[in-house]
């Protein structure tokens, strides 16, 4: 009966969200406060209804209720109980329900945060959020209900996709899906303000920036967790393959990165009003594109577990929302004329604009690379693969220029700067960059592109540390002790210094990516138990191999003893699991990771006599990429923490006279 209750909850949620979108829009247009409050209260009750549906589905998983189609397709008796959570969003219907509940919670939080500061824009923003929710709930109700019953109950289910049986799956898919759908919040706030004929006075900018940064952080974490999952479970030694689904998450991230920077210009100078609207529309469209590709889009991908035939619905919704947003934009363009103009090309504003353009170019090239194979197939009937070499050649240099801009951009003051000023501000970072290049060449690294990339990272890192040093020193001159001076420096301008912390995270990510892309060592070796092999200063001894049988899979495990010099690094167990039902081989790499390099063993093939083929990789500095995640999270949260505001209140003449007395 629990399942039926959940079923009803989904139906009521759909009806309710339809009502919210209509009531809110009508309330906003006709200025009927009661209708607006009614729609808002309706939104507050939505998460509870969806929670009932989620509990019903979780209960069906826990009780192995295989009469529910989704449970039968995504779990079996052998599935470890803790993977019930993963199974919830392992397939298309469940992931849509997950997106719906997460989005309803985000929408509630967003509406609570804007309803007092943006009373006239809120009804429109709410209507847009509810419209997106109605779309998801409509699909769940009519096309992919995770609580749908089967006519005949099977004795056991098909089981969860083996690739999802990994710790990373507890967090990567939910964070990634939340990230994609969270772009809707700043989009709704911005477009809501525009529809309400607000926005021309930057009303929505403060709160839009906050939600933009929250969305950016979730997208960043989703991308990093996905890379970590690919690195540890997919067993090919890499973390990023320019797979269409990876690209689909990267594109909105690029657009959102552009947005959270350019919104600062609008906040400070009342400029880029149209530009910011365009960027947030692009980001929202790309996030829908991401969901489209993920959910049965036409591009083949490693993320096939979430595929369905309803990708085209997402494409249609994307087209309609893009068309609608552009029409609204064109109709309200007159209201979005900038307050100020660019005063100089040598200014922070210009750097933001330049960086924005680069981000958007990178996003569109990635989009082009992702959809080109499909277009080629449709137009010419030819099969074209756009892979890593294309992106490395085309997107790689753009990302490098973005790193340069990230390094030197913060030295450009707002409004205008003189050349001598800029030179004075960047001479230390430039010297550090040259020194980095010299050191890299001196240690024997001769690849020009890698040297250049590291030098750019040197410029950016030196710039940040140099500014921290000079800022602290200035405060120390006023008599503050070093730590107090440093703390005061960064806490009194949180958006700026939070941003620097995020930039440090990006640099850590870049250093890991550059080092592992250019200097990774790879060796395929065939070994018998008892064999020893030396690579990059490591000695690995293949001790033995085992085979274990489980109800759903056969596991082949290799046992290695690894030493580096005289240091014993312990035992390593790379393994391969063959899932009989799915006919899938899941490879679990064994990794010894430290800040210098990762020692990575992937089993390729096991034979009965114990002989096996292994791929050994030495990936330098990859550890820094995973460490970058928490750094970026800390930086973003720090930048978002509220700061004391200096408000102005004019005093009346009588008050002034009283004070003077």
């Amino acid at each position, binding site marked *: 009966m629990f399942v039926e209750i959940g079923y*009803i909850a989904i139906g009521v949620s759909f009806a309710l969200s339809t009502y919210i979108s209509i009531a809110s829009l009508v309330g906003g247009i006709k200025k009927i406060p009661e209708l607006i409050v009614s729609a808002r209260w309706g939104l507050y009750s939505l998460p509870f209804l969806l929670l009932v549906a989620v509990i019903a589905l979780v209960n069906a998983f826990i009780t192995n209720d295989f009469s529910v189609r989704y449970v039968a397709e995504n779990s079996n008796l052998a599935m470890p109980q803790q993977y019930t959570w993963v199974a919830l969003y392992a397939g298309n219907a469940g992931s849509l329900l997950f997106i719906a509940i997460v989005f309803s919670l985000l929408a509630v939080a967003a509406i609570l945060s804007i309803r*007092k500061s943006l*009373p006239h824009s809120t009804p429109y923003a709410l209507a847009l959020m509810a419209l997106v929710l109605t779309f998801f709930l409509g699909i769940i109700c009519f096309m992919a209900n995770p609580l749908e019953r089967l006519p005949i109950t099977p004795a056991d289910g098909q089981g969860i996709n083996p690739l999802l049986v990994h710790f990373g799956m507890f967090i990567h898919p939910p964070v990634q899906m939340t990230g994609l759908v969270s772009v809707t919040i700043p989009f709704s706030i911005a477009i809501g303000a525009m529809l309400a004929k607000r926005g021309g006075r930057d009303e929505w900018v403060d709160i839009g920036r906050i939600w933009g940064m929250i969305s950016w952080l979730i997208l960043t974490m989703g991308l990093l967790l996905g890379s970590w999952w690919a690195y540890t479970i997919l067993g090919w030694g890499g973390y990023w393959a320019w797979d269409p689904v990876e690209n689909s998450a990267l594109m909105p991230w690029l657009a959102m990165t552009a947005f959270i920077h350019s919104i600062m210009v609008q906040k400070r100078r009342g400029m880029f009003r149209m530009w910011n609207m365009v960027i947030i529309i692009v980001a929202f469209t790309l996030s829908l594109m991401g969901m489209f590709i993920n959910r049965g889009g036409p591009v083949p991908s490693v993320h096939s577990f979430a595929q369905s035939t309803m990708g085209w619905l997402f494409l249609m919704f994307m087209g309609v929302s893009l068309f609608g947003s552009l029409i609204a934009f064109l109709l309200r363009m007159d209201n979005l004329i900038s307050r100020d103009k660019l005063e100089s090309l040598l200014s922070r504003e210009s750097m933001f604009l330049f960086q924005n353009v680069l981000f958007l170019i990178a996003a569109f090239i990635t989009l082009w690379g992702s959809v080109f194979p499909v277009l080629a197939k449709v137009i010419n009937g030819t099969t074209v693969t756009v892979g890593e070499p294309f992106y490395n050649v085309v997107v790689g240099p753009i990302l490098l220029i973005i790193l340069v801009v990230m390094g030197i951009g913060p030295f450009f003051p707002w409004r205008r700067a003189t050349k001598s000023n800029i030179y004075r501000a960047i001479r230390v970072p430039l010297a550090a960059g040259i020194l980095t290049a010299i050191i890299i060449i001196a240690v024997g690294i001769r690849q020009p592109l890698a040297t250049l990339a590291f030098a750019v990272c040197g410029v950016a890192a030196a710039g940040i540390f140099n500014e921290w040093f000079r800022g602290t020193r200035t405060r120390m001159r006023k008599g503050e002790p070093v730590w107090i001076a440093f703390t005061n420096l960064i806490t009194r301008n949180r958006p700026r210094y939070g941003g620097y912390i995020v930039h440090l995270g990006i640099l850590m990510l870049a250093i890991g990516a550059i080092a592992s892309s250019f200097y990774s060592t790879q060796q395929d070796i065939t070994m018998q138990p008892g064999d020893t092999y030396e690579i990059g200063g490591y000695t690995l001894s293949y001790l033995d191999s085992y085979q274990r049988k489980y109800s759903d899979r056969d596991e082949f495990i290799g046992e290695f003893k690894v030493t580096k010099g005289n240091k014993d690094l312990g035992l390593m167990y790379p393994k391969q699991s063959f899932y009989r039902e799915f006919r899938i081989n899941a490879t679990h790499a064994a990794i010894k990771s430290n800040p210098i390099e990762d020692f990575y063993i992937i089993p390729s093939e096991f034979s009965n006599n114990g002989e096996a083929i292994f791929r050994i990789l030495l990936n330098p500095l990859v550890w820094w990429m995973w460490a970058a995640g928490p750094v970026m999270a800390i930086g973003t949260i720090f930048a978002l923490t509220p700061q004391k505001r200096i408000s102005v209140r004019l005093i009346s003449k009588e008050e002034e006279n009283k004070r003077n007395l």
Partner: protein
Amino acid sequence: MLVLIAIIMTVIPAAIILYPLIRRIGSTELLKDESSLTAELNRRWESVVAGLRTAELEMSIGNLSEEDYHWIKNTYAKETAQIMEAMELQDEEEEELMKSLELEIKKVKIESVDGKLSGDKS
């Protein structure tokens, strides 16, 4: 049982959305306007303060020369003056509006009291 639960699950959200309509809740909903001049002036004031703070910081750490700093400071000072002037004007307008409103209210009160008195007499 299932029918009862279905009814409850439908009735509760329906009651939640109907309550504000029946009780006419939300009269203060659209009173404040984010696009009002006061709100705009406050935002501009905050952005000028932030700009001045940043310029001072940039100057102290050497990103900004004395000359550029003074130019930026003067520009912001002009903006500050404009904002304060606008605020003052608005305050005066508001004060006048309030005074005229008070006068109107007084008039209405006097008229109603007079009306009552004349009614009593008749």
